[in-house]
């Protein structure tokens, strides 16, 4: 190409010069445009120092330009987020009172009418470009990054394991029964990047130096495969938390717990909490499973039945095998609910499980006259 441009009579010397000119021009134009972009980056994309006012008390001076979620994370305020700021999980909701800019089309699918009216935004989509005022629940301030050592991995069933993590840094965790942590699985053979998944804490909140997690293996799940097949006792792990508002309401109402599979975790924590506080509330736990081999921690519940004043553990099998000689209840949970409910206005329901299960049970509870105010749930998603 170069040769065809120059007559053959040109000496090598002048050809050398023209190659230099060519390179110079390409580099010059490229450099000029790059310079232009750098200037634009530092003027247009530079939003200077912005002040984030949280709950009208705390003030953060930050460099503007990135998302509210990132900036808060960098300042050790951990809003929950499962997708890492891509705007696909809708967890990082917070109230932006001033300076958040217009509501973006990427946020609308996650917000209902009430939330839109109340200036609720997705923190990962709000860019900090000016002084901004936000409101976040004070519970968020208790959220920290923890590291700990796995001291025990116990098989509860064929596909559920219980992890015991002794917390090393910081020393203690303060959480409410029913809350969850976000467990970080590092890069490993099956996954090119570290993944974060939420798991409920199953240990009692009174025990502040360790947490237990109950983890069911999800086929091809990146995080659960790591925990089930790669994680060993003695390994160091990290997590953030505690998150979540699936917690016990402070009343004297009757409580129904419904959870299957690994949804047992927050329920155990709640029951342990109620036990240590000598609760007099009427309690029942319906545990839906398929077969006898899906039942686990039965002794723990028998112990709780003895210690708590009024608690019944009701495992219900949907497909008990003939040979297992199952004497307990069979079928689905729904028909058994109404036997427990004495006064629907004084009954609270705590559900943990798949969105489908929660929808179905909520519908049934509505029919039994339990209002939405008394139905609490933690949905796996």
């Amino acid at each position, binding site marked *: *190409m*170069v040769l065809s*441009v120059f007559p053959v009579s040109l000496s090598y010397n002048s050809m050398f010069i023209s190659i230099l*000119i*060519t390179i110079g*021009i*390409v580099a010059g*134009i*490229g450099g000029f*445009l*790059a310079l*232009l*972009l750098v200037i*634009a*980056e530092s003027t*247009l*994309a530079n939003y200077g120092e912005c002040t984030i006012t949280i709950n009208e008390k705390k003030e953060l001076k930050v460099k503007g330009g990135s998302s509210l979620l990132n900036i808060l994370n960098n300042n050790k305020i951990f809003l929950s987020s499962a997708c890492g700021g891509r705007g696909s999980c809708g967890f990082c909701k917070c109230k932006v009172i001033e300076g958040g*800019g*217009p509501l*973006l*089309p*990427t946020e609308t699918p996650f917000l209902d009418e009430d939330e839109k009216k109340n200036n609720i935004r997705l923190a990962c*989509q709000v*860019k900090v*470009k000016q002084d901004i005022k936000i409101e976040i629940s004070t519970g968020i301030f208790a959220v920290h990054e923890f590291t700990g050592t796995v001291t025990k991995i116990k098989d509860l069933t064929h596909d559920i394991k219980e992890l015991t993590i002794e917390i090393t840094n910081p020393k203690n965790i303060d959480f409410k029964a029913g809350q969850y942590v976000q467990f970080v699985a590092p890069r490993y053979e099956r996954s090119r990047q570290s993944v974060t998944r939420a798991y409920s804490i199953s240990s009692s909140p009174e025990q502040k130096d360790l947490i237990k997690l109950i983890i069911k293996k999800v086929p091809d799940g990146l995080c659960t495969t790591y925990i089930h097949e790669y994680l060993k006792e003695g390994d160091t792990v990290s997590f953030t938390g505690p998150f979540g508002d699936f917690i016990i309401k402070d009343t004297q109402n009757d409580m129904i717990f419904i959870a299957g599979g690994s949804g047992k975790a927050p329920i155990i924590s709640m029951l342990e909490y109620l036990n240590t506080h000598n609760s007099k509330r009427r309690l029942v736990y319906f545990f839906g499973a398929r077969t006898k081999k899906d039942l686990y921690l039965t002794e723990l519940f028998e112990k709780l039945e003895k210690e708590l004043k009024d608690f019944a553990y009701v495992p219900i099998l949907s497909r008990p095998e003939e040979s297992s000689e199952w004497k307990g209840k069979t079928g689905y949970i729904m028909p058994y609910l109404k036997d427990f409910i004495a006064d629907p206005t004084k009954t609270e329901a705590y559900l943990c499980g798949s969105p489908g299960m929660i929808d179905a049970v909520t519908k049934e509870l509505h029919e039994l006259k339990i209002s939405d105010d008394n139905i609490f749930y933690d949905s796996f998603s």
Partner: protein
Amino acid sequence: MEISVFILFMAAVFTSNILLTNFLGMCSYLSVSKQVESSIGLGLAVFFVMTCTTALNYAVYYFILVPLDLIYLQYIIFIIVIAAFVQLTEMVIERFSPVLYYSLGIFLPLITVNCAILGVSLFMIIRNYTFIQSVAFGAGSGIGWMLAILALAGIRERVNEKFIPIGLRGAALSLIITGIMALGFIGFSGIAVIQ
């Protein structure tokens, strides 16, 4: 070339539609034509970038490359200019209109590799357009591209409500539709010829 600017503009939109006669810019055309709304977003972005980069590339070509006898560098230089311009546009839009940025923003990076943009700059050189003609051609091609993607998106939205044989789903049917549309656009070709 002695073509009036208006005729050139209309020809770029209809008779020599860059997408339906030259089949340039097919990739994003096929992948972002599922919904009318997003196709309008991409169409607008293409229109804007095409118009501006044609003008920029005209200046770069005739004021830098021609005097220095470096016209063989046009491919590289044009691409660099387009990429830089898209980046710059992204920053400007993000600063001044976050709503537009988020509805358009995801498409902007796509445009850098949209060959219709480079194609327009190259046609402008091959056909010896003047500056005004080039801008009209760029704007017209941009609108033409938008028109084509909008038409396909509209048709696909309707067709997707109906049963489609498995073998025809996705790109297959889109390409057939595009072919039929292109045949339709041939009907315009007697009106004005620019290539």
